[in-house]
């Protein structure tokens, strides 16, 4: 996790200055709690379990679990979980901790927070987590001992209690959401934990303190495609997301969504301001034959911006504006969408040396006709 960048609010940074002291105190508190009795931990595990729900929906094919986890957040049956393909079904089933089974309805989805709210009917007095109250506590510090609850691997059925794992918060900050590294729509702060919570079906589970206080929702299965490692993270109750609503930029929060429920209006994702064809550079890359073909230059069109910038065949483009580009796909995502006039700072490997090159895109050469709809827009997810 060393690549993790922790860009957080200044308040947190201040707190982190006093880290060593706080850290150890926190540690000792947790150990002392552990020391006192396992019994108390057993009780915590039981209590948290009573407020969780097993979810069953669509999926079941390779890499996509048809099951997940949710957190009951009201006595009348609102359940918070992570927004995923699993919810994309008319037959969403919810199994409460007491073994009762219900059909659930997704009432709100906010992709920018990566959460969804489910409602089941005909229930009352359910044990639940009060998210609004829980979110009043400041985010937990790195070093805090935590418990991760989820129905990973669908180990538990019906009234069986879910898996509990123990860990420590390793960091609180933003994931390095670079293209080709982590692909998630939620861009805010997350808890990174050292418990292996990143398993099928864990998303939407509860991250709590060792006392069972809710801290966040266990995130999706997230792969760092550069290092091929999986990150164990949770979306904090303080999660916020920016976007457009009624043509105005706004910031929304998880708490807001929980407060407003059905009345919550999901954000319209910020559209890229430029939608025309990308600027012209004149680089011809090698054929993109494998999933992660390195962006080697095959040829450079004479007279093109690339030729003028000095790019040569066999150059390997390593960085674009300081961002590592591991594959042709990533390179294209960055460069091909940029409007004419954009300047990129490239680092290319030529022989044994890295060379810095400045590349300024130009108006595209006359390509006729330019169909506005030719590249099908990806749905904003």
């Amino acid at each position, binding site marked *: 996790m060393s690549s993790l960048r922790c860009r957080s609010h200044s308040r947190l940074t201040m707190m982190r200055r006093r880290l060593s002291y706080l850290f150890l105190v926190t540690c000792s508190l947790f150990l002392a709690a552990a020391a006192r009795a396992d019994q108390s931990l057993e009780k915590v595990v039981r209590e948290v379990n009573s407020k969780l729900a097993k979810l069953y929906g669509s999926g079941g094919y390779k890499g996509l679990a048809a099951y997940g986890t949710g957190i009951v957040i009201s006595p009348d049956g609102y359940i918070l979980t992570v927004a995923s393909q699993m919810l994309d079904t008319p037959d969403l089933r919810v199994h409460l901790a007491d073994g009762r089974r219900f059909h659930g309805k997704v009432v709100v989805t906010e992709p920018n927070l990566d959460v969804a709210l489910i409602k089941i009917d005909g229930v009352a007095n359910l044990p639940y987590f009060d998210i609004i109250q829980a979110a009043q506590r400041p985010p937990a510090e790195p070093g805090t001992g935590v418990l991760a609850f989820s129905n990973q691997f669908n*180990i538990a*059925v*019906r009234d069986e209690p879910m898996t509990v*794992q123990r860990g420590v918060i390793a960091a609180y900050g933003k994931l390095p959401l670079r293209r080709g590294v982590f692909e998630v729509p939620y861009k805010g702060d997350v808890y990174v934990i050292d418990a*292996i919570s990143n398993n099928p079906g864990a998303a939407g589970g509860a991250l709590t303190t060792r006392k069972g206080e809710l801290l966040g929702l266990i995130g999706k299965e997230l792969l760092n495609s550069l290092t091929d490692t999986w990150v164990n993270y949770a979306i904090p109750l303080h999660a916020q997301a920016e976007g457009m609503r009624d043509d105005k930029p706004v910031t929304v929060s998880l708490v807001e969504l929980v407060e407003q429920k059905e009345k919550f209006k999901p954000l319209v994702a910020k559209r890229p301001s430029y939608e025309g064809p990308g600027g012209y550079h004149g680089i011809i890359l090698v054929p993109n034959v494998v999933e992660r073909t390195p962006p080697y230059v095959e040829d450079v069109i004479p007279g093109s911006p690339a030729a003028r910038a000095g790019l040569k065949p066999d150059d390997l483009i390593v960085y674009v504006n300081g961002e590592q580009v591991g594959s042709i796909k990533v390179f294209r995502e960055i460069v091909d969408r940029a409007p004419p006039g954009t300047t990129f700072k490239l680092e290319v490997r030529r022989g044994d040396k890295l060379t810095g090159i400045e590349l300024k895109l130009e108006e595209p050469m006359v390509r006729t006709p330019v169909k506005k709809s030719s590249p099908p827009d990806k749905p904003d997810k």
Partner: protein
Amino acid sequence: MRTPRILLLTAGLLAALAAHRLAPAQELDPRILEVEQKRIAVVEKVKPAVVAIFARGGQGGGSGVLISDDGYALTNFHVVAPAGPTMKCGLPDGVMYDAVLVGLDKVGDVALIKLLPKKEGDKFPFARMGDSDKVKAGDWSLAMGNPFLLATDFTPTVTFGLVSGTNRYQYPEGRGLLEYTDCIQIDTSINPGNSGGPLFNLDGELIGINGRGSFDKRGRVNSGVGYAISINQIKNFMGHLRAGLDADHASLGARIEERSEDEMGGAMVVTSILEESDAYRRGLRLGDELVSFAGRPMANANHFKNVLGLYPKGWRVPLVFRRENENRESEKREILVRLMGVQRQELGAPTQPPGPRPRPPAKPAEKPKEPESPAAKLYEAKAGFANYYFNKLERDRLLAAFRKHGDFTPLAGDWTIEADGEVKKERASLQFTVKQSQDGDKDRHIVLDFKVGGVGFQLEPLRRQNIDVLRQPRGSGGLPIALYHYWQLLTIGPKGFEGDFSHGGHEPFYPPAADMQADFSKRRVDCEVLRTEHVGVTGKWYFSLKDQMLLGFEIQIDREDDPCEVYLSDYKPVDGRMLPHQIEVRHGNDRYGVFTVKSYTFGNK
């Protein structure tokens, strides 16, 4: 005092420096240090019992744990499977020992092995077994073993973590074997090589054997989800394992499913049942709702599969079911069911998917290529056994202990038993005589004279005849034949049972109680079992674990029928030998009769 002060100052400075670096440590709550110290002490205490297992010829290995001072150790079946009957075991004292396979539970993925002491009589360190039913999610646990075969000096690796869940069910891995039922789920790191190693609680008690994990995208390394076979399940199989058996798991002979998916609260209902199953004969029918099984409430499919996994084939466990009567009232009934097997396809038990029969363990009969292990002399191959050598050992020990209550071998002649009592609730006296004669050396003639309630008949058990004749009198399941087998066991012993005479591990036994309404769990007595076969008739003999007194036996004449169950009590000395004076005979769901013995008469020798 000057010089010391300078020294002290220097020391003080160093201390200050050290204190500066270690300052936060001093702020630790003393209770934490205490807990840490306790944990370290526990690790030190249990460490000597942890075994590193190596297959002969370097074909991998795993871990294990010693459970007795004479060298018995538990591990996984999948650890010893490639090893064959002998293996090498390293202990944390750095010494390598020879070891031999003793018993197997392939479905449960358990194996019992025995380490050979370097010197006869040397004692091994061993781990104390705990009660895994007391383990709760949220408890701390210690896993020990030899992951990645790291320790060449056999010092085990310790990992520490949380119990993530209990009573977990994990489907079999391939060919119906390695099914983890009622197991303990942990986030304690489990990696290749940890297999077969112990899981301890923080008191240093053995609560499980680590063996499996949920692996998905990370390959076969720790995924935060490991499973340990609960030690209480292994305890149920321990008698079988020690007796060198290749133990089988249980099935009910009925399919139990949750009633419709949308209904609230899962009722577990019988959706198909084999008429040959004991459950059917005891009265379980299609549509009945399972309330509890072996004392556990049944609310979902995992509950049911967990219970089945806990017991060896052949065990009798109580089952409570609910059925609506004609008046639409729900009635509850408790029955005692004999569990069927899993592995050796018993009449196509429906709970098992059809498939090839599992093969016997990796070529036990083949001679190893390398120099023969000294442990090889403790190995004897035989079908149905993991190691027949240990079965003979246990069988002979049991027989010797049983004979302490009375040696009847000098009385191997004619016998007469006379008793009073009742048959089917009517007063009836009973007379039973065994007469034997010998024609030359070979042909032995046995004639049984049997009279009950004034009706008498003769039987020749050694003659080929109709099964229905052998099952007389009606309703007893074959009492004269049962008594004849009893006489054989007492007077002739092993030589009287040419088909089988082996130790059958441990089983619960349920002697009749004054209050027959009392639930079965209160009547249960744990017994050692002897299995016999004579002229195609099989028997199971139940000896009290406490003192090897024979509490009863079952004689099965017809595989399709219930056995004749004979319960023995009120032991009194007859000519200095203990014999039962109260005999109760049951067959199927009913009592055939109960008798008080007036006399045992031993005829000519």
